[in-house]
């Protein structure tokens, strides 16, 4: 049985999507000439500002291209579904947004992305464009706490990019912008659960198998296996399981503030996200933590996968200021 999708040829899906994005948001975005997978903010990149280039595979929309705009990322390099972009669009992005003070690359920590972005950075160095890289590693399910640098980057991207984008928009120096980005990443924790798979447009077949009454805790946003598989539990029990892990990692003190993201992996509807949010709030109340801001919805998806993730960003004064800084992207406004 094939998954039903509203697409044309599977191999054209990413490029046609990008054409649709430009058709819908010409006031926010454009593509570099003859490089349709290098998507640039109309407003934002400028002289003297650190350029922020994000990117990764398609299929996570609105991550990445939805976060390109004034106050957030300057450009996104777009790969095939669940596949890193190659170096060419990455380089095109960097050249389009370079303000002369350095370009920051930020993306999820995946072998493919690292190799492609590193190749791009090496070649840009030949053109005297200084590049530094901050990998996002917020997925607490993907490696133990003492090996944070091996973790995957998942929905926490939204807050981490947001903070870094604000730092760049506020004209932080290259050093300071890099520091702020690392700081944001270090204080952001995500964990998710998947209930059912998605299908790639080229195969229309489920990308993993899961039982009719099972869930996978810690599932990656590309359908990579997580930490455990078990029977589907209630929203409260699942939320507790995720929150237990996040709170244990975060080591916050009573009175600390957090930003919360309850994110759908795709087909889990808002009703379920808000039911989880209710429990998140109860747990945070119980721990004496204050919700400074919350996002609930489709922020970092895996096509039509069912499931959800919870992200907590442990705020301090600086991160709070950066998260509150206004931004105006095609798919995200603050």
């Amino acid at each position, binding site marked *: 049985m094939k998954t039903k999708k509203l697409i044309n040829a599977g*191999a054209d899906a990413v490029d046609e999507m990008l054409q649709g994005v430009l058709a819908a948001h010409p006031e926010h975005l454009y593509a570099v000439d003859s490089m349709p997978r290098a998507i640039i903010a109309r407003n934002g990149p400028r002289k003297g500002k650190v350029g922020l280039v994000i990117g990764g*595979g398609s299929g996570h929309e609105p991550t990445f291209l939805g976060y390109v705009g004034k106050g957030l990322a300057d450009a996104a390099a777009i*790969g*095939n*579904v*669940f*596949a*890193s*972009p*190659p*170096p*060419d669009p990455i380089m095109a992005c960097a050249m389009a947004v370079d303000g002369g003070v350095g370009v920051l690359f930020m993306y999820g920590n*995946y*072998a*493919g992305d690292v*190799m*492609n972005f590193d*190749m791009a950075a090496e070649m840009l160095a030949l053109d005297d464009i200084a590049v530094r890289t901050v990998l996002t590693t917020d997925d607490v399910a*993907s*490696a133990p706490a003492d090996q944070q640098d*091996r*973790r*995957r980057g998942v929905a926490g991207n939204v807050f981490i990019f947001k903070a870094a984008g604000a730092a760049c928009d506020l004209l932080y120096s290259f050093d300071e912008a890099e520091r702020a980005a690392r700081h944001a990443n270090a204080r952001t924790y995500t964990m998710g659960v998947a209930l059912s798979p998605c299908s*790639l447009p*080229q*195969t229309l*077949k*489920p*990308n*993993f*198998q899961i039982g009719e009454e099972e869930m996978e805790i810690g599932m*990656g946003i*590309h*359908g*990579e*296996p997580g930490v455990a598989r078990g029977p589907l539990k209630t929203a409260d029990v699942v939320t507790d399981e995720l929150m237990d892990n996040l709170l244990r990692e975060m080591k916050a003190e009573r009175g600390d503030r957090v930003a919360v993201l309850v994110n759908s992996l795709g087909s889990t509807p808002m009703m379920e996200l808000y039911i989880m949010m209710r429990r998140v709030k109860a747990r945070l109340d119980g721990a004496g933590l204050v919700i400074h801001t919350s996002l609930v919805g489709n922020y970092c998806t895996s096509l039509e996968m069912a499931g959800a993730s919870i992200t907590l960003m442990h705020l301090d004064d600086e991160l709070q200021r950066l998260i509150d800084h206004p931004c105006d992207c095609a798919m995200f406004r603050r």
Partner: protein
Amino acid sequence: MAITTKDLQHLFAMIAVDILAQRDHLCELDGAIGDGDHGIAMDAGCEAAARAVAALDATQTPPTAVFNTAAKAFLNAVGASSGPLYATAFMRAGAAVKDRPELSDDDFLRAFAAMAEGIQERGKAKPGEKTMVDAWRPAADAALDAWQPGASFHQCFDLAERAARRGCEATRDMTAAKGRASRLGERVIGHIDPGAASAAIVIASIAKFAQHRDG
């Protein structure tokens, strides 16, 4: 009889056909321990490489340029992990046969070994880490070991193919230290690495190519 640009064009076409035949199978393997797209990535990359190489004027293009063209095309069509790995493999192969108007058996063998080198250089993986290196490294070693005055060209590659298959099978019992699967600990045991599986297919195509030439 030397290996010409025309021959390499055929080789890339053969690889593309053989990978396409296993596309969905490779996706399934990747679905178990990765993100389920490896067949798509390899198909897109090999197809792009074959097309780009086919578009070259064989009478004007030296073998090194064939490899470089394949590298660029593969990389830009794929990204992912396989993109830089195979792109670097092809670039190193190209570098290994720089300035040669045609390839001797020895040249081709060096190019083959250079591919394995390139993959390791780019991905920093060692054998035993459950990656495509577990197919490429033993295959290159087997071919180089067998290559001596008097050995037949295609026998070297038959041995390479066998070593690749064995190496691929051996990934079944490994935990992963590189790539997506590296976060899964014991859960990946029992599953073949998809990159090793596709490597075995590519190497088998090369062995077929070698046989065809000799036979």
